[in-house]
């Protein structure tokens, strides 16, 4: 215990140094006034409450953008949103039930596991609460009784990516799945496979960048014919670039979704293109459509799902998009 005091003194000395060195180092936060990323003028409150429920696993940048979109929509339309999430289907069903019990005006929910959520969604429609699906569940939303759907068709997005790869001469793409047992990710790779027949899948541990990198490096060493790596999330695209460099491979990288670093890599030509399903739009539209439905009885999509993607981001349009990635809206 006596040692402690020495440690304390050391820590104190350190913090003094830290203060002294502060404000003389570059590359950090830009010291301008923080402008609210989801800014804009708030409309007068309408008094509506909308439950916004997802299957988000905490720690995924994708959902930040969905939430940012939903929050902006709430501001623009003057509704209050109650956000909740749980990656496990039974718990997500309970969240929907909670929303019904608390008599919200509308429910926007992802429908990633349609059968597990069917009961709760029915309870909502029985109670006269309008339900809108987004992000996932494109094939099932109508059967469950949801009015509208905003999202991308994962298979379609994969097919579009595969098509572009095949057109560019890709023979043997590697599709990197970073989470086990995810239906949406498997669907993307299936889509890629349907239009680029040489596609092979690989499973990596998305929670550990070092593991992703060395796994991909090993795969590139094992199979030298791999000419494209398709990552299903932006952080894995960065890992893939590192692996390619290490393995001395000439494979090209294509990714789903965007983040700041990936956007920069697209600008620098390291990543060929990104397939963006525009999560911001998903969140924004889910809330806005509910608002319109409650307020004005509108129905969007003409009885069909509204697709928010795939939208391609490549060298040609990246300059326009980079500022939005900094705002965390794309």
């Amino acid at each position, binding site marked *: 215990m006596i040692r402690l005091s020495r440690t304390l003194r050391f820590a104190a000395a350190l913090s003094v140094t830290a203060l002294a060195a502060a404000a003389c180092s*570059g590359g950090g936060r830009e010291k301008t006034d923080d402008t609210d990323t989801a800014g804009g003028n708030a409309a007068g409150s309408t008094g509506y409450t909308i439950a916004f429920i997802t299957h988000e696993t905490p720690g995924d940048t994708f959902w930040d953008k969905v939430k940012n979109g939903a929050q902006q929509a709430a501001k623009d339309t003057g509704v209050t949103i109650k956000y909740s999430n749980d990656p496990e289907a039974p718990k997500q069903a309970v969240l929907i039930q909670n929303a019904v019990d608390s008599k919200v005006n509308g429910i926007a929910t992802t429908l990633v596991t349609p059968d597990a959520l069917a009961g709760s969604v029915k309870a909502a429609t029985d109670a006269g609460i309008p339900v809108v699906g987004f992000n996932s569940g494109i094939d099932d939303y109508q059967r469950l009784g949801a009015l509208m759907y905003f999202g991308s068709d994962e298979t379609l997005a994969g097919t579009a990516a595969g098509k572009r790869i095949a057109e560019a001469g890709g023979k043997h793409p590697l599709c990197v799945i970073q989470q086990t047992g995810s239906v949406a990710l498997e669907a993307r790779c299936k889509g890629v496979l349907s239009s680029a027949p040489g596609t092979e899948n690989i499973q990596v541990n998305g929670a550990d960048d070092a593991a992703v990198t060395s796994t991909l*490096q090993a795969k590139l060493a094992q199979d030298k014919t791999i000419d494209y790596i398709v990552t299903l999330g932006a952080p894995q695209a960065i890992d893939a670039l590192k692996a390619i460099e290490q393995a001395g491979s000439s494979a090209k990288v294509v990714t789903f979704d965007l983040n700041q670093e990936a956007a920069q890599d697209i600008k620098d030509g390291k990543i060929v293109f990104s397939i963006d399903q525009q999560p911001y739009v998903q969140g924004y539209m889910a809330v806005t459509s509910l608002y319109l439905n409650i307020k004005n009885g509108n129905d969007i999509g003409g009885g069909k799902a509204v697709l928010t993607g795939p939208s391609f981001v490549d060298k040609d349009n990246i300059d326009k998009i980079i500022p939005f990635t900094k705002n965390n809206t794309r």
Partner: protein
Amino acid sequence: MTSTIEAPAPAAGRVKLGLSNRLLARPEIGALVAAVIIFIFFLSLAPSFRSAESFFTVLYQSSVIGIVACGVGLLMIGGEFDLSAGVIVYTAGLFNSMFCWYFGVNLWIGAFLSLAFCLLIGFLNGYLVMRTGIPSFLITLGTFFVLQGANLGVTKLVTKTVSSLDVSNIDGYDSLGKVFSSSFKVGSVTVWTSVIWWILFVALATWALQRTRVGNWIFAVGGNPDSARAVGVPVLRTKIGLFMTVSFLGWFVGMHQLYRFNTLQAGGGVGNEFLYIIAAVVGGTLLTGGFGNSIGVAIGAFIFGMTSLGIIYAGWDPNWFKAFLGVMLLLAVLVNLYVKRMSTMRKVG
């Protein structure tokens, strides 16, 4: 009354235990045999496994797990668990990157503050376990959740997203990168310094465990803490020191991750704590403490690296990896049980 005791007939000489018995009593022997078998197995089945490049990729993969596992192994020999060891790696990196980004200070300062912070967490883990008597499994499970939540929450507050921002433009990046995450070429082979660090840490831990007083204390506090206390071993200090060693090594790997990848996802590291424990157990560390060694733990991490990548080199479906890992773990536990029985049985009179 000068002489009251008569010694039994003096033994003619000490009987040396047979070689096989002495070998069996070594904790790493089971892991070593398994490692050799797995190595030969992949050598014969995976053509692309047979190159120096592949071998060093495997070593790299093993080192990232092995460095923290080295500390976790020591802690387990000392009779405790640390479930927060996986997340603290990312806590360390996130702390460093966000602190420096937010306050605009040199990365070295953030690195040292992050170290101080990690050591504090290790200290708290140890102090709470020792003072409350609650099993370390529960205390560190709590720390695990706290850190996991704080990683996400603080990152979100600071950067408005759930990953840290690029540190490559902040001062100190280059020199820190050299220390924690550099590589050099030997012919066509890339050697990461993390592998060298790993070997150094294992060597140091082996020395500490087998040849120093502290090592003796670690075995004692793990094998029988009450008895250790009774003969004057500072149990509290030893155990807290072990927890702090784990968080130091977690910090080290966190630095490596940060300076290799420049950004970190706030949700990372979850699940790795079990890999560390598996490496330690496969390497012959007894779950109940008091038995094991660092070389065994290193072999355990190497087995992990070899199988996780060997499956890829062989071109198999990596989905099977976890199943394979589970089988390894079960076998290791069975071997351990057998070894413990053998070594506590009365072999000789």
